């Protein structure tokens, strides 16, 4: 049943047209016994919460970018992100982390434990590389005189990458916890489910990062166009 049918059913007549047999059938067929369903639902809701968070940051960014004192970090050739090589390197690390986790799910399903271990370690290393890489970008920026409080564009760069990094850090903790639980209970099926959820989270964070990357390294002209389009 789709959601509209569900919301238009007449519960006071339920005994007539929704005989209990049909009812319980639809209940049991709509989702198989699957202990990770709640976790999956919760993850999707959590991802929507995080999306709202980044959406609102983006809107404040676009609105603030139209102030006169806003100096974008890209555009003119001497600006730090006109050639964002370091950021491309970090992006590569995050892509590799996502791929490793995807492989880990595959190996977990096939119960190839040694391969699984290697991919998990790789995923963690690539994620850590990304975080360290982002941190070194911060250091480079500060050294080159683009400090946090120098300009709103800088503030937003540190803020958005920082929030994104914190989410990835949280993901790493979750991943370690998943492995730890597997270590204690060695339940492959629940490991596969949990790894799947981790992988979804990593892919999601990769998409968010690609979006932020595009946003933070765009030129002032782009901001002006988007802002005009949004009516700021």
């Amino acid at each position, binding site marked *: 049943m789709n959601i509209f049918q569900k919301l*238009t059913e007449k*519960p006071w007549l339920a005994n007539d047209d929704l005989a209990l047999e049909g009812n319980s059938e639809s209940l*049991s067929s709509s989702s198989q016994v699957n202990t990770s369903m709640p976790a999956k639902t919760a993850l999707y809701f959590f991802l929507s*919460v995080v999306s709202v968070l980044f959406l609102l940051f983006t809107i404040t960014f676009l609105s603030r970018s139209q102030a006169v004192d806003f100096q974008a970090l890209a555009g003119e050739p001497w600006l730090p992100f006109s050639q964002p090589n370091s950021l491309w390197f970090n992006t590569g690390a995050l892509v590799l982390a996502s791929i490793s986790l995807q492989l880990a799910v595959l190996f977990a399903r096939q119960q190839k434990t040694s391969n699984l271990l290697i991919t998990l370690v790789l995923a963690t290393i690539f994620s850590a590389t990304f975080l360290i890489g982002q941190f070194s970008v911060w250091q480079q920026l500060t050294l080159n005189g683009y400090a*946090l409080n120098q300009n709103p564009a800088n503030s937003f760069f540190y*803020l958005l990458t920082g929030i994104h990094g914190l989410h990835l850090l949280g993901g790493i903790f979750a991943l370690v916890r998943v492995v730890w639980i597997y270590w204690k209970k060695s339940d492959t099926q629940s490991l596969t489910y949990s790894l799947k959820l981790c992988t979804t989270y990593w892919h999601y964070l990769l998409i968010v990062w690609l979006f932020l990357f595009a946003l933070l390294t765009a030129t002032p002209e782009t901001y002006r166009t988007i802002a005009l389009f949004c009516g700021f």
Partner: protein
Amino acid sequence: MTHTAIADQEDDSHHPKSFIGKYIWSQDHKVIAIQYSITAIAVGLVALVLSGMMRLQLGFPDQFSFIDPSAYLQFVTMHGMIMVIYLLTALLLGGFGNYLIPLMVGTRDMVFPYLNMLSYWTYLLAVIVLMASFFVAGGTTGAGWTLYPPQAILEGTPGADLGILFMLISLAIFIVAFTMGGLNYVTTVLQARAKGMTLMRMPLTIWGIFIATILGLLAFPALLVSAIMMMFDKLLGTSFFMPAILSLGEGVDHSGGSPILFQHLFWFFGHPEVYIVALPAFGMVSDVLATHARKNIFGYRMMVWAIVAIGGLSFVVWAHHMYVSGMNPYFGFFFATTTLIIAVPTAIKVYNWILTLWRGNIHLTVPMLFAIGFIFTFTHGGLTGLMLGNVVVDLPLSDTYFVVAHFHMVMGVSPVMVLFAAIYHWFPKVTGRFLNNSLGKFHFWGTFLGTYAIYLPMHYLGFLGVPRRYYAMGNTDFIPESAQALNASITVSAIIVGVIQVVFVINVIWSVFKGKKSGHNPWNATTLEWQTEHTPPRHGNWGDKLPVVYRWAYDYSVPKVKDDFIPQNVAPEQVIMMDSQDTNNEEKT
């Protein structure tokens, strides 16, 4: 099967083992609900005292030396923030949401009991940080509950150094706690319902809490974003919200930031917050009315759709709090329109409550009195809301006592009336005992009439142009002397109402130990929480077998049936028909 959730598995890994496991670090939703409720009510009593001190200054200016202008602003700020977030949101969702969701949808616990426990302790941490701000140098922030920059973090505002930081940190912690709890409520409603409990068989209480939780999950990030960015401005010298400005004769280090941006973010959270508080109240009052009027709720589907519609609309009305911020007139026009549209589903609900009472077998119990009182206060506050929703009416009335009267009627008094109705209604389930009836009636009439004595005159003060948040009126020509007499009478009423709440607290404490025993289902209600094997329900709620749901939540006074109610878990063939009538079970089913 959808109802096989994590909390419902055979292994009893989260069964409590010791006193501490059972009552302190408990993962049982009922214990967590009580922890949430007690904490929220305790901190709410602090906010009640703060409002009393505010009123003392307003009613009898300069009589009390301990209330200087800074202290007054701090009382105003903390009263608002505590009441809206730490009392109402926490009590309605953390308290009642936690207690009622698993019992009403027929599951053993929340789907993530550990996360649920963590949610409470994180909430407690937020409350402790908030309370700690009373004791730091400079005291709490006095920026008003809206915390508008630039004044919130500039010298000259009380608590601009540490108070505001504690406030922002506490809010951020609260949002983390709420998100953990909220994910639990939503997932439990979606994934852990008992067999036969379709979405449209859920009691309206669950619908209200469910939609309110989704609103909270999507709205609180806006507050988090503004809190984080304001902390950056305060601590790290960024200029997200801070413009170039002279403070105490000196230029600040900020430039170019937009305070209006903060207002947009704040109210993008702030307006849904009104409905985060109101929707669970709508739901609970519907169930109380139907149960005590022995009648099915009128227009159940409309009630559900109205809840969903209000939830959706609540995200596109926020700027009606900002008509005076100098916005584009078209912008104001848009938000005035959406604001007035939201009155349509709200009015549907009010009509349906009244039609539920129409020709019902009304039992004037204490919960019913509070529920009927709610219809009065809510309609009253809602109508003044329609006035303020219009830009031209709002401009002269903005920041006067008319606004104070409006939002206290609609989101202060009304949800509190429902909270009392709910406490008197569900107390027998939580403790197995009734609250004292005479004290309850005294509490109701004192609170109901008292709040009118407080807020009705405030509308008039607002028309006179008395501004809100002012420590003293000074020499203002357009405000007559008699306004002061009115203020004094409001203060006396407020203090009487405040003292009457002590009667309620005494009633609760006394009744926990000495109240009249209530039995399993004292109100003859149909919903699942009254059908548990034990009262109060034990850990796991349902004994060996989970309930199976055969009907909607409002089978009251069904024709030809012997009792005037049929619980949701009674199968059609088990329904006992009237003796004198033709007892043909087939006809019923």
